């Protein structure tokens, strides 16, 4: 690849770029879905191309193509510079990206079993077994089980001398079952909702989560939900399970700490953030027990990688310490910008710029944004709750464009009465304002309950980009939460 990367960078500089990088990316996806006993989808998708990002005349330009050959490299590299010069026509100031980042390295996702070497037959057997278990429960209208595997190989090179090769492997799986009644549809998912649970891992990840062994329980819960009473509407104590809490962290912490949102560069689409820079290091985000870390190094996390798409090493950053807001997710440009008002902020990016493939420009994306574990067991937490609701697995989500007012719905919920799990209730929802909600967090389960949940469908950017993020959580308890809005 070096012949291509050197040519691209030379041409960009020859056309006037003061900085350039190139990413050459191949993605192989395998997706399999078994729905109601038949293989609904089985596809292999291969996608390859390169993108060149430049700074010329103090402004950004980016161009990309699916045809990697010397002539196209030349065309696209020159086009990126032309675009940058057009950007410069209306610039207010020159782009600054801080100190150089120069790394020569190779990173590969560690795994035990290459998912692309496991036979399709074995995968179909696993999915069919789960499907059969689920549909063995009377009342199930639809059972849909799936697996997805990704191999992404990418080469990054920059005019600062970086040359980084990475191979990222992901494996994911899930089942969703639906029961239908008059004017009512209830669903349960395992291990997580919205398609699947996913991690940077090999096929051992699929075996670990044992889809066939858990499909029946999911189906029985979906059927039981049809006749369950409606979740009551009241202000009460709320316990969230790990998967629902993972999405709560994603939406109400992960997005507002993206420094590009804070600086307004996502304002027109995804929105901005309530965590504006005057709050940096000086704002109580949650209670004393709330500690949140963003990292790209947790083994198996869906947000785990060696280097981001600016060639900055993956690393770990404190976001919330003992309830205080102390850190952002940054890029080279936004880290430089933050230091203009906060000279003590880190000089370098913490490595969270990622692009959704060769044809997208990198933007700040969550890696593994995780709530650190507390010290109790789930049984102890429930036993210590006089009156409340225990909600499990996300079904619905919405949050305002500064990430303050949110409303979530879950697939399953139980009442808690006098320290014991009570009756099942359906269509559970809860709502709140982010800092007040996290301020009411008074218990978090211990490390035995902690798991990194994968979110493979985080949308952001124009043109649209989908990112794969991870969120480590253990069940947690929140006081004085409004539940049951419908």
């Amino acid at each position, binding site marked *: 690849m070096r012949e291509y990367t050197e040519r691209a960078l030379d041409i960009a500089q020859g056309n006037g770029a003061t900085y350039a990088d190139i990413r050459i990316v191949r993605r192989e996806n395998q997706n399999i879905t078994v*729905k109601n006993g*038949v*293989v*609904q*989808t*089985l*596809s*292999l*998708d*291969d*996608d*390859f191309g390169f993108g060149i990002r430049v700074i010329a005349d103090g*402004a*950004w*330009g*980016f*161009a*990309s*193509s*699916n045809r990697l050959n010397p002539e196209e490299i030349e065309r*696209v590299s020159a*086009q990126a510079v*032309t*675009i940058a010069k*057009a*950007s410069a*026509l*209306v*610039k*207010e*100031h020159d782009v600054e990206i801080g100190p150089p980042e120069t790394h020569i390295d190779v990173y590969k996702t560690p795994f035990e079993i290459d998912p692309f070497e496991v036979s*399709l*037959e074995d995968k179909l057997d696993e999915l069919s077994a789960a499907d059969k278990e689920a549909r063995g429960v009377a009342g199930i*209208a639809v059972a849909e089980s799936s697996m997805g595997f990704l191999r992404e190989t990418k080469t990054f090179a920059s005019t600062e001398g970086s040359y980084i090769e990475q191979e990222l492997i992901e494996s994911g799986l899930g089942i969703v079952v639906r029961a*239908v009644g008059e*004017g009512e*549809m209830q669903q349960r998912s395992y291990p997580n909702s919205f398609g699947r649970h996913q991690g940077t891992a090999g096929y051992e990840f699929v075996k670990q989560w044992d889809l066939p062994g858990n499909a029946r329980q999911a189906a029985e819960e979906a059927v039981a939900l049809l006749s369950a009473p409606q979740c009551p509407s009241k202000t009460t104590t709320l316990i969230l399970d790990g998967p629902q809490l993972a999405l709560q962290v994603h939406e109400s912490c992960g997005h507002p700490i993206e420094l590009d949102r804070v600086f*307004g*560069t*996502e*304002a*027109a689409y995804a*929105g901005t953030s309530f965590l504006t820079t005057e709050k940096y290091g000086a704002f109580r985000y949650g209670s004393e027990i709330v500690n949140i870390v963003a990292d790209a190094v947790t083994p198996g996390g869906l947000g785990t990688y060696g280097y981001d798409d600016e060639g900055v090493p993956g690393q770990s950053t404190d976001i919330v310490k003992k309830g205080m807001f102390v850190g952002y997710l940054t890029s080279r440009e936004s880290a430089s910008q933050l230091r203009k008002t906060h000279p003590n902020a880190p000089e370098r990016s913490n490595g969270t710029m990622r692009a959704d493939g060769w044809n*997208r420009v990198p933007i700040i994306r969550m890696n593994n944004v995780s709530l650190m574990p507390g010290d109790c067991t789930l049984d102890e937490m429930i036993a210590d709750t006089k009156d409340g609701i225990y909600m499990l697995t996300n079904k619905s*989500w*919405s*949050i*305002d*464009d*500064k990430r*303050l*007012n949110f*409303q979530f719905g879950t697939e399953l919920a139980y009442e808690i009465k006098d320290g014991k799990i009570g009756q099942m209730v359906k*269509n559970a929802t809860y*709502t709140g*304002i982010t800092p007040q909600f996290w301020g009411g967090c008074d218990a978090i389960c211990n490390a035995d309950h902690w798991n990194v949940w994968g979110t493979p469908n985080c949308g952001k950017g*124009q*043109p*649209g980009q989908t990112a794969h993020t991870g969120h480590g959580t253990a069940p947690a308890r929140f006081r004085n939460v409004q539940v049951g*809005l419908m």
Partner: protein
Amino acid sequence: MVGKARLKEIAELALSAARADQTEVLINAQDAALTRFAANTIHQNVSETDISVRIRSITGKRVGVASSNDIREASILKLVQKAERIASYQQENQSIAPLPEPQAIPEVDAYAEPTAACSPARRAESVGMVLQASRDNELIASGALSTDVQETLIANSKGVLAYHCGTLADMMTVIMSDDSSGYGAGTAQNIDDLDTNAVGRIAMDKALKSKHPTAIDPGPYTVILEEDAVATMLFFLGYLGFSGLAVQEGRSFMSGHIGEKLAGDNITIWDDGMDPRTVAIPFDFEGVPKQKTLLMENGVARNAVYDSFTAAREPGRSSTGHALPLPNTTGPIPINLVMQSGELSKEELIASTERGIFVTRFHYVNPVHPVKAILTGMTRDGTFLIENGKIAKPLKNLRFTQSILDALSHATLSSQQTTVKLGFGNLAACVPAAKVEGFQFTGATEF
């Protein structure tokens, strides 16, 4: 732009190499450019050239799919083999429908050279004028201006050959002050017809008028929903209810209720892939011509949309030309939605409102209860109190939790329809504004 001849050549190469009983080739090619701006400057300015080839092979009752964006001859031949190999691994699927037969496909003139030829400098110039106006008013502008050329060719071994080339220019902006924001957007096939300055003016006007918003208690209110908000509701009706698969699986509000009254007398909704007020494309992703499909008539549920898979599950049913690339688990969906207009202008709707809330658009909307079509979401970028028939003052944003069907049972529609491009591919709807009684706001935020 690749052109029909070259795309046809690729498809013919794949079909001639195919050994399966039936083979389908779906090719998408695009030249896309987008100039993105924020904080009154261009911060992302990108272009993309890509082509993807997707092969669907059916042998007996087995189907396999493979895709790639490598169009070299040897790669296309390997891709065909890969799809056939995948099919061979499968168990038989009795529900597989045969590939469609050829049908006459009308042509839609959707290409505009000025859009295809638009340079980065021209986009920067258009954006620059919005940025300057924003600076002059001490406001902050963000948004995007995009110009795309998209080609689609579908061919199958039964003789289907469908080709379409379209251009699209799209501008959206959010302009903000310290405590307010306004939104403007426009879409045109020809960038010469897209008044980007007007888009900026609308957003700026709302940003200025919504300064210093005050809070209002949540509860039921009469609302005036601008076209963007109505289009969002309509999109979710399509996604949740108008799909033949959702109806068959009992998760649609229309399941078991076709022919029943579900909304007000004035609510008539159809899908028309030939309507230039949406992003017209005359065929679906199987190469079946799109049929104009009446979905709701005078509030009565009439039809859902179908692809060949869902149509084959019901005797006598045929595809309405609404397939996504098959096979899939999403099912067919309408993507060229139109809602019948009413008789009063938007201004008259406001003037007829003693007390209510004016909503520019919604943000982060998602279903809470799909079968009842209950959604939740926030207002955004221009929310105002209406008193005595006039916009009285700006409001802080509110959360709604509301059944769309209930809302459309108490709605008065405006006389003018507007095209609204939604943020999902080429999805666009042509809708009026609406006045809705008793719209449920269930929460409030701090700005």
